[in-house]
């Protein structure tokens, strides 16, 4: 599986080239275009290991209920993937490590990568962002999407990131949800609300914009539901 990101960082699309026999799993609705002979199957979970329970968990995590699996059958094929919000993408290769991804940032992965919903406990519930995170593990390539640009932060010790700006982080990091200011009142009035405090050693990938803030900025301009 070969991944090429084009038109970065504003209007990124991922071109995935699959050799015969390879399979790429992508978020439902992410396909823009593909070779005519590409085969598509929709399942609730990892191909061949469907589990309605896992799918239900994924739906709760803000990810779509279904995943699409693309395979080019017996000859090479290409697949273009895009995201609904403008922004950058990130291609990572996992080598038997665990990556925790903010739900909604997952775009695609190689078949060998296993996906599970990570329950981060009630502390995530408090964060006001998505309650769940996706836990990707195994070996293989992963593509993540973001709203705005992506920048990595190497954490060695402590670091604080606003919950809405996290794309993904290494599982080696421990995190707690906390307040940004010295008092709760100050934190809320300051508009920062809750933040994520990471500790340990690892990388956190952040996005330059917060989709929730953008959405709320649009609210007064949208017709009432």
């Amino acid at each position, binding site marked *: 599986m070969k991944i090429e990101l*084009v*038109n970065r960082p*504003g*209007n*990124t*699309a991922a071109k995935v080239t699959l050799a015969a026999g390879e399979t790429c799993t992508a*978020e*439902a*609705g*992410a*396909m*823009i*275009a*593909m*070779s*005519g*002979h*590409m*085969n*598509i*199957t*929709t399942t609730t979970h990892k191909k061949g290991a469907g589990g309605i329970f896992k799918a239900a968990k994924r739906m709760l995590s803000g990810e*779509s*209920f*279904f995943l*699409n699996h693309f395979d080019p059958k017996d000859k090479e094929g290409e697949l*273009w993937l*895009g995201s*609904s*919000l*403008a922004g950058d993408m990130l291609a990572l290769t996992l080598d038997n490590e665990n990556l925790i991804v903010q739900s909604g940032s997952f775009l695609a992965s190689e078949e060998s990568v296993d996906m599970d919903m990570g329950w981060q406990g009630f502390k995530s519930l408090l964060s006001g962002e998505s309650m769940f995170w996706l836990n990707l593990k195994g070996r293989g390539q992963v593509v993540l999407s973001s709203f705005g640009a992506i920048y990595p932060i190497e954490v060695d010790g402590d670091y604080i990131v606003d919950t809405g700006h996290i794309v993904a982080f290494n599982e080696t990091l421990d995190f707690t949800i906390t307040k940004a200011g010295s008092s709760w009142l100050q934190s809320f009035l300051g508009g920062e609300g809750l933040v994520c405090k990471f500790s340990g050693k690892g990388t956190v990938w952040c996005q330059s914009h917060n989709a929730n803030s953008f*959405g*709320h900025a*649009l*609210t*007064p301009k*949208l*017709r*009432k*539901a």
Partner: protein
Amino acid sequence: MHTTYNVVITGKLAAGADKTAAINAFGALFKLSPEKSQSVFNKAPVAVKSNTDKTTAEKFYRAISKTGLECRVVDATAGDTPAVSQGQKDTPASSPAAPAATTDNDTPVTFKGFSYKIEGRPDYSFLTVEIPANETLKVEASAMATMDTHLVMKTKLKGGFGRFLTGESLFLNEFSAANGAAEIGIAPGTPGDLVHQHLDGQTLFLQNSAFVAATMDVNLDTKWQGMLKGFFSGESFFLIRASGKGDLWFNSYGAIIEIDVEDDYVVDTSNIVAFTEGLEYEITKVGGYKSLFLSGEGFVCRFKGKGKVWIQTRNAQAFTSWAHFFRPVKSKK
């Protein structure tokens, strides 16, 4: 004796111009890749157009100067003493005529029609077109952002009732440079890329909102996609058919990716920007019925044959359904 002129890039920048931006703009002007235009720039001083008449040379000069690259018009018959002498002592004496030959081979300069530039590619493209005296440009209604005061605007009902049904505005604005050459700045409605095509008898189909501008000899009409195709695609019932001769500009939401279809290719219906005539297309479902309803892809367009398809990286429908979540809730009385 008939005097001919060379247009030479000096390898310097106009005052205040950004090098990368200027090179990219230059590349956009001549439809070169950034690498290619960089290499042309590195070879400077180099003639980008040789042995041409004065009017054409001046046209080139104006267009290139706008990109931010410094250029000058040199009398080609004046022998091989290039007029690019100042500040060139460190460069080995190279006559612009010699590299001109190589450039012409490497990079066929296909400069036809109106001169124009596209800035802010690919995220926030903005089009500026130079309308020569007594010429007219057709522009999508409400897309004009800036223009010279002596341009005359006429609103025309184009394409008849059909265009009303495409969801494309019923009106096209025609800007005529009746009192001498003029410049117009055009900003498409969606942030994204812009593509220029010079039609010479070919026909292109545009998705209904992709049209930006065209010269007068480009015919625009609408094509009924057939009840089924239009209905299931969730898009409009019509495509815009552009044919004839002249310049055509179209835009996208998000960046544009050009795909050469050799055999067959599948594109999500809401990501199609344009495609060449001759491609067969049909609206189908992806995979089985399970995929149809659950894959999130819905219906796709399957292109068959040989041709070109332009697709966009973003999808307006996906964005609006994302925004839908943030709609204010109607308060109960």
